[in-house]
Structure formats: structure tokens, C-alpha cells
């Protein structure tokens, strides 16, 4: 059992405040990802949870007990470091058994426990090797094994896969997730790979400049981004944004942009005439034959076939736009095309504060 409650957490380095009062609750057994641009404070938050970084203000509690002043060694959390931090003079088995030895677990029990975990991580043949005789992926797994073997209350991961090549990364991603499911251990996972965050997490925390922008399930964050930052941060290629003015009339709600009038489904806050930003994901745009009601004119600049999708780059008015099509597509560069939108996929944000309106 480990429910983690973080409230009004602040961190200063000297006079610089890098975390500005974070609130976050992680439920028992949940897998939560922290994602955000480089320098936004993900590692700092994780290290504060681990006890490796002092807390300037606010509290961190496990199952209701504030642990601000508990030493890292007494928090019963395990951390997988970005650089693995294996003990280079100890064998794989000794690396993994280190924490058990410290807990005075009898030798006769340590070896089987280590062997079980090694089995799970396909490390059995390497138990007596030193870390320097392992590949990057194997080292990564040893770091994982070291964390798992002692069955901690909480797993903390700081970009554990960022040193691996793309293929191994996907494979480890699946393995870590499966493992976490099986163990049911509360986990916090720092990454700046949104694919990792989307596929592994129960919930995602999107951070920006030391603040939390949104917390939600992966698809919730994707489908209903709370603000412009989240809208553009999550999704690749990122969401198209157009400036416009909100219009309410008898026919419904519309956003009038420089080049189009886009209909919005459902309810929306904000007054008629207010300035807004319309967002549409590239994959929610399609090419339509002619100018129809609500279509957006699009001057094609570039076609990028990725295999699975075809990405079109171009502009409407002076605004750059991206379209992602599921099919192959060909047209002369410079063509004037029209884009259609499904109205249920239109996101509207307040121009002033960037918050979602619909």
C-alpha cells in the first residue's frame, strides 16, 4: 500500500524557485508519468519524492504520513537512474542483492530472490558478470532488477530508457509496464518521450516551467487538453492553432478565423466577439474537393510520406498548418487545396489565458 500525496510543493535553488507549489496525488498501484520540456522540473520533483533533494516548502506524504524529513534510505522507495548508476565493482547478482544484504536478509534467501528477478528480466546468464561486461540494455535491466528485488513501496524512474536505441526502448517499455502491472507497485515515471507516457501510464502529469499544466488519463489529455500548452505538447505532429473570434448566432457557435469559419459542436464558454484560439489535430483534417462550408483553404508546401501516414505541410493565410493523412497522397507542390474538419474534433482556447473553452 502506498498512496502518495504531494501538496503545495516548492523548490528553490538559491533565490530561484524552480517548482511553484505542486499538488499531485498518486494512488496505490498507479503508474503516473511526469512529462514536460527539458528543465521544467521533472527530475527535481522525482528527487524530492526520493528524498535526494531538500524540500523548500510544502509536504510529501505516503499513506497520510508526511515524509519530508525521512532519509532516502528509510523511505522504502527504489529509483532507477537515467545513467543506471550500477556499482561497477560488484557483480550483477551483488548489485541486485545489495539492498537485501543491507536489510540483513539471510544469504540463503538473497540468492534465490535475485535469481527470480534475473529470470524475470532475462538476466540469468549474466549474474556473475561485472556491469562493464554488459550491453546498455542489459545494464538498464540490472538497474531495474536492483529496484524490483526488494519489493519497495514506490518505484521512481528518471528517464530510464533514454539511453537505449529506438527498438530496445519499445521493447523495454512493454516489459516495464507488464512488470509494474504484475507487481502492482505505485510508480512515478519521468520521461520526455510522449509515446512512453501515453502507452505506459494510468495518468500523465504534464509539467511546464515548474507548474503542473494538466493531470489526466492519456486519452483524456489527448482528447481534451486543458490549455494551449498541453494541446501543442501532446501529439505529434503537434496540433494546428488558428487565431479567431467567437461568434454565437441562431445557427450555432462558430469561430471566424482569417481564412475560414469553423463550426464548433457542443457547448462552449466565452462571449460572442471574444478572441480565441482554435486547435485541430493534423489527423482530424482531411482534403476536400472544393471550398465547402467550414473548409479551410490550404496551400501545399511539402509532402512527407512516413510510410504509415502522409504528412502535408502548408499554410492558410500566413499560418503554418500540418495535415496527417492515413492514405498515400500526391499533388503538385504549391497546389491550393481545401481542408475539412469534423466539428467534434475542434478545440477552442481562450486567447488571453490559453485555457480550454469547450
Amino acid at each position: 500500500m502506498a498512496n502518495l500525496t504531494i501538496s503545495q510543493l516548492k523548490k528553490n535553488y538559491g533565490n530561484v524557485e524552480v517548482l511553484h507549489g505542486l499538488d499531485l496525488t498518486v494512488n496505490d498501484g498507479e503508474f503516473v508519468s511526469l512529462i514536460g520540456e527539458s528543465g521544467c522540473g521533472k527530475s527535481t520533483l522525482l528527487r524530492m519524492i526520493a528524498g535526494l533533494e531538500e524540500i523548500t516548502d510544502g509536504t510529501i506524504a505516503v499513506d497520510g504520513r508526511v515524509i519530508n524529513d525521512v532519509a532516502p534510505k528509510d523511505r522504502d522507495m527504489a529509483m532507477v537512474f537515467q545513467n543506471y548508476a550500477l556499482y561497477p565493482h560488484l557483480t550483477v547478482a551483488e548489485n541486485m542483492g545489495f539492498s537485501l544484504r543491507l536489510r540483513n536478509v539471510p544469504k540463503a534467501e538473497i540468492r534465490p530472490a535475485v535469481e527470480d528477478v534475473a529470470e524475470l528480466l532475462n538476466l540469468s546468464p549474466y549474474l556473475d558478470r561485472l556491469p562493464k561486461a554488459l550491453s546498455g540494455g542489459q545494464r538498464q535491466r540490472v538497474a531495474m532488477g536492483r529496484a524490483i528485488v526488494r519489493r519497495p513501496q514506490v518505484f521512481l524512474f528518471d528517464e530510464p530508457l533514454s539511453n537505449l536505441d529506438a527498438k530496445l526502448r519499445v521493447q523495454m517499455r512493454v516489459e516495464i509496464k507488464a512488470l509494474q502491472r504484475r507487481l502492482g507497485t505505485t510508480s512515478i515515471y519521468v520521461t520526455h518521450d510522449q509515446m512512453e507516457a501515453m502507452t505506459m501510464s494510468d495518468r500523465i502529469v504534464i509539467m511546464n516551467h515548474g507548474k503542473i499544466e494538466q493531470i489526466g488519463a492519456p486519452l483524456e489529455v489527448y482528447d481534451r487538453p486543458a490549455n494551449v500548452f498541453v494541446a501543442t505538447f501532446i501529439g505529434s505532429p503537434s496540433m494546428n492553432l488558428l487565431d479567431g473570434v467567437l461568434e454565437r448566432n441562431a445557427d450555432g457557435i462558430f469561430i471566424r478565423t482569417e481564412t475560414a469559419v469553423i463550426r464548433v459542436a457542443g457547448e462552449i464558454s466565452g462571449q460572442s466577439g471574444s478572441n480565441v484560439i482554435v486547435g485541430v489535430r493534423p489527423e482530424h483534417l482531411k482534403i476536400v474537393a472544393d471550398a465547402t462550408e467550414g473548409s479551410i483553404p490550404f496551400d501545399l508546401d511539402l509532402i512527407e510520406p512516413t510510410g504509415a501516414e502522409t504528412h502535408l505541410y502548408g499554410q492558410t493565410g500566413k499560418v503554418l498548418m500540418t495535415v496527417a493523412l492515413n492514405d498515400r497522397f500526391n499533388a503538385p507542390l504549391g497546389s491550393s487545396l481545401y481542408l475539412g474538419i469534423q466539428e467534434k474534433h475542434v478545440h477552442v482556447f481562450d486567447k488571453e489565458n490559453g485555457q480550454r473553452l469547450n
Partner: protein
Amino acid sequence: MTHRNFALAGGKIGTIIAVLVLLVWSVGPIYWSLATSFTSPTDLISAEPHFWPADMTLEHYAKLFGSTSMSQGNKVASVWPQFSRAIINSVITSVAATFITVAIAAFAAYAFARMKFPGRNVLFFVVVGTLAIPAYTVMIPLYRLMIALHLVDTYVGVTLIYVSAFLPLALWLMRSVYQSMPLSLEEAAWMDGAGRVYTLVRIIMPLAAPGLIAAAIITFLNAWGQFLVPLVFSPTLTTKPLTVLIPEFVSRNYVDYGLINAAGIIAIIPPVLVVLFLNRFLVSGLMAGATK
């Protein structure tokens, strides 16, 4: 030969010359000492220099090790009792100073490298700054202090002085060794449940072994070669080391070059053995595999 090749060849010749100069500079005196120790007293004062004694003699070594020996046709008592005693004194003070210095440096340097306490850097620079103080300026106050503590001509006294003299250098060396190690290793150990001291002893020190060995070598050589300190603080054979004893082989009207050089050659052997032995542990690449 192109200009470039010429420059390259020139560079190579320069390197060779530099190496030769260095060799002559460092090995030359030892060679000369060795040759002298095998030269008979009559040849020693001959006008023409020999690079190797024409007829080798072991008489100087006999004077060192034998119970009696011949000198200038007279039968004299050997210096073995004094000489052996001085060897023991040298070994005891040097080894003790080395162990204590390295042990203190191993822990204290960690505190200076990793722990946060007020005045940390100031204190460190004050300690290391003592390296810049010439030994003779502190000799007199130090002498009065040692008299007051009844530590003159005792192993404890000499060892204490050595430790205080050589600790700053070892501390400096070890601090930079610790600073160069990835902090994440220590953090990983703490997360695994280890305390500070356990982490230091079981994780950090084994990886800092080359630094500790280097500190030990430097300290031992420094202590073994000390002259000024034992000259003042080791007046009798109770603690007098080789460095002070050997020059005393100069008597009022006769400088026994052969004996002095034979003793010097013997005095070189222990530090050479220590360096050879410790050198085996001075391996690099201990950190390989810790991080990606």
C-alpha cells in the same frame, strides 16, 4: 624530405633528447651512487673518473652488514647496529604516517567533497594552504610544543608531525578523486538503504582505491625522504631514521664516500619495493560500467 616530414623528424629527435636528459637527470645520480658503493677507497680518490669500478669491491657493504671490517688497513667495528636500527626507525615512522594520513584523508576528504557544512571551503583552503608554509618557519614553535608534550625523540611525535605535514596533500588529492565520482552512485546506495558511512566504505572507497594508493605512495615517499624534521626531533637512535644517520658517516677527518653510497643504495630499496607493490593496485578503469 618535405617540410612537414622534417618538422616531424625534428619533433621526434627533440622528444628523444628530452627523454635522455630526463633519464640522466633521474637515474644518473643513482647509477653514480651504485658505482661508488662498489669502488675501493683508493680508486675513489684517483684522478681519472671511472664509469664502473675497475676492480669491484664489497668492502663498503661489508662495513654496513658485517660485525667487523677493515678500514684503511685497520680493523674497525661495523655500523650495522646503528644502521639496522635506523632502518627500523625509518620503516616504523613512514608506515605509521602513511596509514594514519591515508585513513584520515579517506574520510575527511569525503566530508570536504560531499557534505555541506558552514565554512567548508574556507576550512579546506586553510588546511591546504598550510602546504605553502615553509617547514623551517614552524620548526621552533613546533619544537617547543613537542618538548612540552614530551614527544621529542618518540615515534608518536615524529609520526604526528609527518601526518600533519602530509595530510593536506593527501586530502587535496582525495577530495578531487571523490568529486570526480558520479553522485548518482552514492544516491543509488542511499536509495538501496545504505547510510553515509556504509556507502563511503563499501561503494566509494573501493572505487577510489587508485586515489588512496596514490596518496599512500606520495605520503610514504615523503616520509621516507624526510630530513629536516627527524634532524630536529629524532636526536638519538631511539627514533633516528636513515636520512639522518647516513650523513653522520662523515667523520671529522675522513669522508667515507663508499660507505655513504652503499648505505644510500640500501636506503632506496624499501621505497622502491613499496612503490612496486602498491603500483599493482593502481589500475585504471574501475568505474567502467557504472553509467552509460
